[in-house]
């Protein structure tokens, strides 16, 4: 059996990749992908921790709800990106610069 630390290491790496991607990327779609990578790192951590503590299913349950809520969130996110694209014909966040003080 693979020890839980390995899963957590992988999950941390995924989370970091997602975080760096979110901060470094400039394409809106890729920002959405980065957020998904981060949330799936959370899911992986939850399921792995649950495997280490098989007496309850709290972690697995939480990850199911995370997946469902992620899907809803992404639907709204894509709708917003589409709205921006229709109005500005671009998916680069740097071009979203109307609101400044």
């Amino acid at each position: 059996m693979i020890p839980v630390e390995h899963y957590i290491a992988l999950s941390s790496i995924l989370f970091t990749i997602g975080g760096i991607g979110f901060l470094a990327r400039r394409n809106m779609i890729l920002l959405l992908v980065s957020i998904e990578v981060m949330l799936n790192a959370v899911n992986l951590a939850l399921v792995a921790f649950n495997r280490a503590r098989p007496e309850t299913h709290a972690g697995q349950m939480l990850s199911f709800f995370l997946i469902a809520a992620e899907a809803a969130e992404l639907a709204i996110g894509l709708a917003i990106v589409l709205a921006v694209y229709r109005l500005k014909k671009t998916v680069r966040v740097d071009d979203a610069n109307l609101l400044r003080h």
Partner: protein
Amino acid sequence: MMPSILALMPMLVIGFGALALMLAEVLTDAKTGLAVGTAVVLFTAAAFACAGWMVGPENLGDAAVFAPWLVFDRFTLFFEVLLALSGALAALVAGGYLREHGIDRGEFYAILSFSTLGAMMLAAAGDVLMLFVGLETMSIGAYALAGFRRGSPKSAEGALKYFLLGSFAAALMMFGFALLYGATGHTDLAGLHNALASESLRSPSIVIALALVLAGLAFKVSAVPFHMWTPDAYEGAPTPATAFMAASVKAGGFAVLLRVLLTVFGDERSASWATGWPPVVALLAVLTMTVANLVAGRQESIKRMLAYSSIAHAGYLLVGVVAAIRAPAQAQSAVLFYLATYSVSTIGAFAALVLCGSRGAEVVSYEDLAGLGRRHPAVALPFAFFILSLAGMPPMAGFFGKWFVFKAAMDAGLHGLTVIAFINSVIAAYYYLKVFVFLYMREPAAGAPIAKPMWSGEVVTAIALCAFFVLLLGLAPGAVLDAALAVGGAG
């Protein structure tokens, strides 16, 4: 059985009410009644929460049997009343605003109701799962409301920034909770608290988890330096949605912040000045107040000014949160009371701002307000009134809100923090008074666009209710303060 149903009634009423609103929107052509319908649903929910308060949450015991992940205590009930009232007032403002500006689509009210429901679940959450579901229900609705004006590039852009940073914050927070689950094996908040308090658990993952959760929460309550989305989302969103975000979403954020910091991380090590979160939150509070107040003075747009003002208010609230480590009951009730005063003042201000403008002649900048006090005294007066309350002028509600938070901080021995908060509330007077200068002492520049007031019974009703609450909380704060103290005493 009866009392336990009563505990769930506020949420059930809003949930089914929102579904009914969606049906009504589809099945009928009448859009005018939806705002009033939403307000009725939310006021009913508030009435049920009040009834639950009177019965007493200790008599709602068996509610925990079929809703084990929700906590029904006075803290929850206080927030249920506050959130339902804020949502109802925002819906009334929307009734006038959406019709005037030609974006009268019925889904606004259903989304607003569901988002309010999410905020209530957030306040009532007793488990990380419920906390997350509530957070997402609230936030997803708020993203949609922020981008509601689909044809406007500003609205879409504000919604985009809000969505991206909001989801990023949620991801940070959930990774923090996943680490906590790994360290303790608990996802229920009480279990997490016990595990963190009892075990000699000193794993570095708990510190990382605390940092991640705190960062996520700071995003939600828009504390500096996690505030970048706030001015953009507030400016771009339709004004009623801005009012909703400034009042309900912020109140929901503070509910979960209090719950997480005082319950989960309320153990001696995490909540001590030397080894835990208090110095970090104190630093956030100082940064939030100072940066927001300094930047607010430089704004030209009224909505951006109000956005920075709402960030500054989050800073004062964080002072109260820090004070809660030394004087938990007093500081927590001060924060709750402050949230009540801030919510009615800020919704009132946005409602009055809506009334000052009309289609194609909205109030955007200070210049648009120039001379409004002379041309249209009846709409300038409410705006001035709520601005005074936000500034914390006695005898308005805002004054007592600040007074109790500052007093709690003083009693907790946080003298430096209190002085900084006080200096900040003096700095804030600058940009609030600037509104007065423009309203009453300036004449519009030649050729400048002049805002024309609109008329709407719903908005006037919302303003009247807000003004009533502002005066009630300012002149006779006793009842609400007692309620807030009862929360502090019980929690």
